[in-house]
């Protein structure tokens, strides 16, 4: 078996604020193989984005990776200093951000922003860098890329800007792309175009991908594997069919239940009662226990560890649903 491109083990990223330590990510593990798409799902504040930024090494104080290991192609990158990390960023590791209106610098032309990304890692002439940018733009489906290259970001639509951002991410054919809700700010038709585009590019180039989203329907069509995060931890992780069709964790089940298309017409949407706990004050037991219909005394006292289940997935629950249903 080939080694996964990215292995994250027991990652913990905490924010040391005046109000106390916020454990945004607390013991997260997952891995992504070449050409594989891992979808990380969870609601706001579940630690999805912080996980992504931790991998990129872009956690700023008061945040800090306190423990765990992140290996890219088997090499540990958490201990690297800023200068070494910079050589990896943008080259082996690329990131696409949520809001395409904000990721491109409004006062710099597209060519400036793309060529600098090429020159940051490769010692080539500006002319060569330019033709590589044109190539990347046409790869993501931007018409007449040579002319568009000398435009400013405000002359592009949101979808086009996101394509530019994806083109920048693809410039160095990275091993891994972290996509932090890249289609959330786009309308549905553009979203599906971009999804199809990204899927095709990943398959062609063998790039692994971590796709962070709160939209289950996006990962359903895109991801190979899925990791559900809740309150800074992965509560369920496994192949996408297994997790979506046969969720073991009550939280995953609740998420799927709250997707509009899963509900019968004319009925109220089923929602998960309560709200996400404050990350500064987590209960000693399972973080989901206060909102869980299946909670027991054990859940209140002991935090469930994540462990393998029968279907090739892992779940962190004392009372996984398959057993709860059986009993």
């Amino acid at each position, binding site marked *: 078996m080939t080694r996964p491109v990215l292995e994250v083990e027991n990652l913990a990223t905490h924010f040391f604020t005046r109000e106390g330590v916020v454990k945004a990510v607390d013991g997260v593990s997952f891995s992504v193989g070449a050409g594989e798409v891992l979808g990380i799902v969870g609601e706001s504040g579940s630690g999805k984005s912080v996980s992504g930024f931790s991998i990129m090494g872009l956690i700023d104080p008061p945040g800090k990776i306190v423990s765990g290991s992140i290996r890219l192609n088997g090499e540990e990158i958490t201990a690297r200093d800023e200068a070494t990390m910079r*050589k990896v*960023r*943008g080259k082996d590791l690329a990131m696409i951000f949520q809001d395409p209106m904000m990721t*491109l610098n409004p*006062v710099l032309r597209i060519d400036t922003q793309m060529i600098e990304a090429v020159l940051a890692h490769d010692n080539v002439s500006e002319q060569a860098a330019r033709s590589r940018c044109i190539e990347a733009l046409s790869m993501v489906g931007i018409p007449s890329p040579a002319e568009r290259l000398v435009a400013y970001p*405000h002359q592009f639509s949101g979808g086009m800007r996101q394509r530019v951002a994806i083109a920048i991410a693809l410039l160095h054919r990275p091993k891994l792309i972290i996509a932090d809700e890249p289609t959330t700010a786009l309308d549905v038709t553009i979203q599906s175009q971009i999804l199809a585009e990204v899927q095709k590019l990943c398959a062609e180039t063998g790039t692994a991908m971590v796709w962070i989203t709160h939209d289950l329907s996006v990962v359903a069509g895109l991801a190979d594997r899925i990791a559900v995060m809740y309150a800074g931890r992965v509560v369920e992780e496994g192949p996408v069919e297994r997790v979506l069709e046969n969720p073991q964790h009550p939280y995953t089940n609740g998420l799927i239940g709250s997707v509009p298309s899963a509900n019968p017409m004319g009925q109220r949407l089923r929602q998960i009662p309560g709200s996400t706990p404050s990350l500064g004050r987590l209960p000693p037991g399972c973080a989901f226990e206060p909102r869980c219909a299946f909670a027991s005394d054990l859940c209140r006292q002991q935090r469930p560890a994540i462990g393998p289940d029968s279907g090739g997935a892992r779940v962190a629950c004392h009372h996984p649903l398959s057993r709860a249903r059986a009993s």
Partner: protein
Amino acid sequence: MLAFIIRRVAQALFVVLAMVIIVFFGTYVVGDPVWMMVPGDATQDQIEQVRREFGFDKPVHVQFLLFVADVLQGEFGRSYVHGGSAIGLILDRMPATLELALVALIFAVVIGLPLGVFAGLKPDHPAARTIMAGSILGFSLPTFWVGLMLIMFFSVMLGWLPATGRGPTTTVLGIETSLLTLKGWQHIALPALNLALLKISLVIRLARSGTREASLQDYVKFARAKGLSPKRIVGVHILKNIMIPIVTVLGLEFGSLVAFSVVTETIFAWPGMGKLLLESIQRLDRPLIVAYVMVVVLLFVTINLIVDILYSALDPRVRLAGKNE
């Protein structure tokens, strides 16, 4: 771009016209200038004669049109005190003032910008806190007092720099300047620093808040994700964004540098038009005052025009707005 410039020039001309009206009626209501022009023991006939000579006997609107005609020809009358053409006297002194203001502006950017960007990047660093405390002092201390302290310290106690005057000047392309000799720089250093102090503080504050705001933006994080060096991120991505407000404010402040130079020029005996104005006000030399006001108006209008054009060069979105209109 051309349409943008033409529209701004037209707006500028309107401002100048409005100012001509204000200046004329402002001086008209101040009082009869004849009393300042004739000797105290003049007879009624002599007064009437002077009045006719200068056209003060004509109705207001005729006088106004004559005034406008004179202004259009660049004619503001003769100075009562110096006897020469008022505008000529002002223009003679203008290079010295502009030179002082320009050097002060350069000081403001060269000193203020790096300090402000540093304070913005590392807001909790002790040096950053010192810079910010210093900028509050720069804002609060009165110019004349700082000027006197500078003279006291650098000229009297240390004896490093001359306290007064402009020093030797050389003529380049018909403009007298003291910036080509070391001696000239020694003379200009103190007054320019004095004049610049307020602007340095202003630039520090603008650069700091701009940097703090910009460094939290997604485009900075994205630039880091691309693997760019901090030098490039700060020097290109952040700096180009924070320069927009700084250029705007500094452009407008250049006018106030010229205006503030009245105080600095007086303290350092700098032979500029600010010093001339103060002397003219003391002696009620009206043509000189009018000429000074008109020159300053023109200066402000021109500066605003240049700022607008620069602004559109810095921020592509301004250009687009002009195109769509």
